[in-house]
């Protein structure tokens, strides 16, 4: 995870929030299967998840949302998580975005 910049905000003491960028390293992008796995992972966390690219943000628990970003190999994808276990979700999602294995 060389490319991530993470900022944690702890304004209200309990509302965790993480924002950062990751690089899509799967040569096939995040289409179909790798994208599906990412959405499954996002859905396994209680916090809110958002993905973004080129200024557009989508619901990170929605396959339709993710596909509408069309994340391809080499793209930088913003990840934003907010709420319970946000930090853990942020790190796990980032790791998957930057992994190559299917």
């Amino acid at each position, binding site marked *: 995870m060389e490319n991530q910049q993470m900022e944690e905000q702890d304004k209200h003491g309990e509302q965790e929030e993480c924002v950062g960028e990751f690089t899509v390293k799967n040569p096939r992008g995040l289409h179909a299967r790798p994208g*599906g796995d990412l959405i499954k992972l996002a859905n396994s966390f209680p916090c809110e998840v958002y993905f973004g690219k080129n200024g557009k943000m989508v619901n990170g628990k929605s*396959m339709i949302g993710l*596909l*509408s970003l069309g994340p391809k190999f*080499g793209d930088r994808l913003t990840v934003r998580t907010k709420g319970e276990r946000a930090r853990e979700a942020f790190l796990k999602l980032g790791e998957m975005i930057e992994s*190559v294995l299917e």
Partner: protein
Amino acid sequence: MLDEGGEWGHMQVKGIGASPGYAVGKAVILKRHDGGAERRRLREGETEAELARLRQAVERVSRELERLADETMRRAGEEQAKIFSSQMLLLQDPEYVGAVENAIREQGINAEAALDDVTAMTVEMFRGLEDEYLQARAADVADVGRRIMDALLGREDPLGQPFGEPVILVADDLAPSETARLKPESVAGFAMELGSRTSHSAIIARSLGIPAVVGAKGVLSQIAAGDVVIVDGRSGVLHIRPDEALIREYEEKRDAHRRRMRELEAYRGRPSVTADGRRVELVANIAGPEDAWEARKAGAEGVGLYRTEFLFMGRSALPDEEEQFNAYKAAVDVFGPEAPVVIRTLDIGGDKELPHLGLSAELNPFLGNRAIRLCLERPEMFKTQLRAILRASHYGNVKLMYPMISTLQELREANRLLEEAKRELDERGMPYNGAMEVGIMIEVPAAALMADRFAREVDFFSIGTNDLVQYTMAADRMNESVGHLADPFQPAVIRLIRRVIEAAAREGRWVGMCGEMAGTPLAIPLLAGMGLHEFSMSAGAILPARALLARLRVGGLAHLAETAANLDTAEEVAAFLRREVPDIADFE
């Protein structure tokens, strides 16, 4: 439409050949339940019941998809089964089923109407995206939407009944779940009005080995149920109501193709060995990490030519070291740490529009400032690429290759910059393989003639026949009027290739080839006889090449080069090889 006969006569429709092979059979036209869903406003207090009805339908579809995923897993493998798990995700998607629930609640309309609206909107959104792959995802949404609708209305499955004898299935397009419900033994071929090579029906047809023509505009209006249809999955032509002679011709083609496929399948995952036990490498030419998967699936043992130009094209700035490293390592990861991956440094010149490189237009770009010449002029850009390749070498069997080398000075200068790049990585404490092999492409006749000297200073040669032919024969390979000159079977070219392989052998270096010639069946016996070690080709040529090599005895092929190099013309060389190599016609 190429040919319009009488109203019920023979006609052809041209589409896209999406899955190879040939099929002959009677047409069955897929009819779906469409429309007919009632649209109404919900009465007071009805909302909860309507939401429950939707949830029930979604659950039924979810169970169906699960069962389909299991069945498909058994029949077609994990790859295809995954289609259904991504459809199952749609059933839980807050932007899809979630949006249907919202529409029921907020607009007070029934589930059918809400489903229709949301499905149509989502399909529209995907169709509007540029990416061909994402457009195909529109089919997923439409498919899931139709299944939920069928469940809401308690409709039967239109593909439920058996067809009897194998048929040609005609439809606008097939949804993934529809293709999966088909029994391959009951379907001889597909004829689709819509679709592309990357649509679901095309992908599944290829994986099931069902010949398919897609994107054949007009088929639905031209074919009646029960018509005889021929599917030519190679040329993409559909023959509708053909005569007896054509039917017989295609039945023969079909049977020959099937025999051949069975034979080739046996070579997947096997090493490339000749009949007398000589091991060679069959590797793929790739133009980016995306191709690596396809190549591995097609049976490639590694990469013989990784073209790095794609990283530099279609963008406004040079790719940095990190981005390049990721792209190179991605191919290494696909093939694993043992498999060879030969990465060629930037091969680009004045024939490409690359504003960020500031290349000047040249009168004669193929003889101009390109490839290694350009890179040596821009050491910082070149060293960035060298560092990225070195870093990737830490993770596997990476080999570095310089393109278009003409003189020893160029090679030495490039190697000097390589040493600098290594020192720079040492300073940063970054790991790389210090023993990474370094080779050159032999594509300039000057380098072929000096091969004995080059062989002392490199680990390997890779002969780039496309350019070697063009430079040796002074014939532009893109210019059709000199195409007869740009022929790798020209004796002058064969003499050069032979000289290069012999010079390398004297120094104990290996030689590969990454031009089109390496995958040409007629050339393979000649090259194997000369002692070529590595053959790099497009992915689809690998299994046929492996099957051909398995029939050859290299010991008996050495004379081919001797004779071929002493013939007068390219035509004589080709005719000689056809005479000498038994059964070569099976492979051409």
